[in-house]
């Protein structure tokens, strides 16, 4: 149920996590999901472990609650093939800053299925997958293919990947509204064993979009002397293409005792003039049958060239957006996880199991997006700040 009046020009904040608009957000997620679980070890000339995960996820923040399950089942067939299936659901209840200022709170659900397979031959692994995501006003289908090659005595693994996505955007209040978006992703990655205590991964990823990229419900605001509050709203209008480039480096270092230090950095730049730096540091510490970890992550970005909190007049520029994620912003995340291993000696066909809990506390400071829900006078509204908690509880079984 959407609960949106036909006239409502909703800015589906949640959407980034589930609504059709959020192709920008959803697409890379689908790419990852499509081949997730296809291997964890530093030595790629083996198939991924046979494993099943039951995860419950819950996001709470900014008036938005999103929760649901994710189930991943992976099983090898013979010695050369591994198959995986994933089922994922987002149940959304949104009364975000965008929704409460321009539309009505709503609820909806997104369901995603994916199937993938890995084929191992010698030092080469080929992976292919398909993912389908459906909700009331947005469908996405993604096909992906990747090839990994081990070399230099399995110290180095080179991976090339490609994915093709076909999205369909609709409007819940207009049955005749129908738009397409084609998305392609190209990736190259190198994982390198540096020493007996250290491993690093360098990844470069290009994603191109062509089609309808904005949210069909979201609006921008502009100065309107005829309005009692001093401004009015009109639909946003994005460019029809976007190309993003991201390069990321990740390292893990095994300390002199049994614990791990992890560092990560990403540089991002795109054709919408968003440029960002993201870094994180984490520490993992096993203790008896537990593994604890703590992580701090920082992200900062510039805004898109067509983003304005308020435009000087109606249709002031060729392209217009007021999606707060396109604003200049900085975000911080504090993460804590705990995992407990049970059934260490196995039970029946199960070799071992773990139960895991994680909490991410996310703080986002928007540097060019004002909170107009405060009732402050036009032009003096405070910049918006988002605080959110992300909970995950999951059980994993190896067999």
């Amino acid at each position, binding site marked *: 149920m959407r609960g949106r009046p036909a006239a409502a020009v909703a800015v589906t904040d949640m959407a980034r996590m589930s609504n059709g608009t959020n192709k920008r957000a959803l697409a890379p997620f689908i790419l990852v*999901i499509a081949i997730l679980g296809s291997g964890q070890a*530093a030595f790629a000339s083996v198939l991924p472990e046979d494993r099943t995960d039951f*995860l419950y996820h819950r996001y709470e923040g900014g008036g938005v609650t999103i929760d649901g399950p994710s189930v991943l089942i992976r099983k090898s067939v013979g010695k050369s093939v591994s198959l995986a299936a994933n089922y994922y659901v987002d149940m959304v209840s949104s009364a975000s800053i965008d929704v409460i200022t321009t539309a009505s709170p709503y609820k909806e659900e997104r369901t995603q299925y994916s199937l993938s397979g890995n084929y191992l031959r010698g030092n080469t692994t080929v992976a292919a997958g398909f993912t389908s995501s459906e909700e009331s006003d947005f469908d996405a289908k993604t096909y992906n293919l990747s090839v*990994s090659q081990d070399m230099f005595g399995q110290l180095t*693994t080179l991976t090339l990947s490609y994915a093709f996505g076909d999205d369909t955007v609709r409007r819940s209040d207009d049955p005749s509204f129908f738009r397409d978006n084609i998305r392609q992703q190209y990736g190259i990655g190198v994982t390198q064993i540096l020493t007996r205590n250290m491993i690093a991964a360098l990844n470069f990823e290009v994603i191109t979009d062509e089609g309808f990229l904005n949210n069909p419900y979201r609006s921008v605001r502009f100065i309107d002397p005829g309005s009692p509050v001093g401004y009015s709203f009109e639909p946003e209008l994005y460019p029809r293409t976007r190309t993003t480039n991201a390069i990321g480096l990740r390292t893990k270092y095994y300390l002199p005792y049994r614990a791990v230090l992890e560092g990560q950095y990403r540089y991002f730049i795109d054709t919408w003039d968003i440029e960002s730096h993201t870094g994180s540091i984490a520490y993992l510490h096993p203790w008896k049958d537990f593994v604890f970890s703590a992580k701090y992550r920082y992200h900062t970005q510039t805004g898109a060239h067509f983003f304005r909190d308020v435009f000087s007049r109606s249709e002031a520029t060729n392209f217009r957006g007021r999606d707060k994620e396109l604003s200049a912003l900085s975000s911080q995340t504090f993460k804590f996880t705990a995992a407990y291993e049970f059934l260490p000696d196995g039970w029946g066909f199960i070799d071992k199991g773990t139960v895991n809990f994680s909490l991410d506390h996310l703080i*986002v400071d928007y540097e060019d997006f004002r909170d107009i829900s405060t009732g402050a006078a036009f032009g003096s509204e405070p910049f918006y700040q988002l605080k959110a908690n992300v909970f995950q509880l999951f059980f994993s079984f190896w067999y």
Partner: protein
Amino acid sequence: MKTQRISRLLLTLVALAAISGCSGIEPWVKPYERDRLADPIMFLDMDPVSSAYIYHVYEAREGARGGEGTAGGGCGCN
């Protein structure tokens, strides 16, 4: 354009990597020295379902995407 310069640099690096692949580099970490690397806490992606979800959250709340997850490499998960 900045993005074009980055693309050229990466293509050069890939070409160098391809050339070096013919030079017969000896592995400097022997298989019997990889016990720590084989410890599950050293896996680049210990819990794929969980990490895929949390990167989805980041991509939803920020303007950047890609390059941060477990893409490519020996991890093999995108």
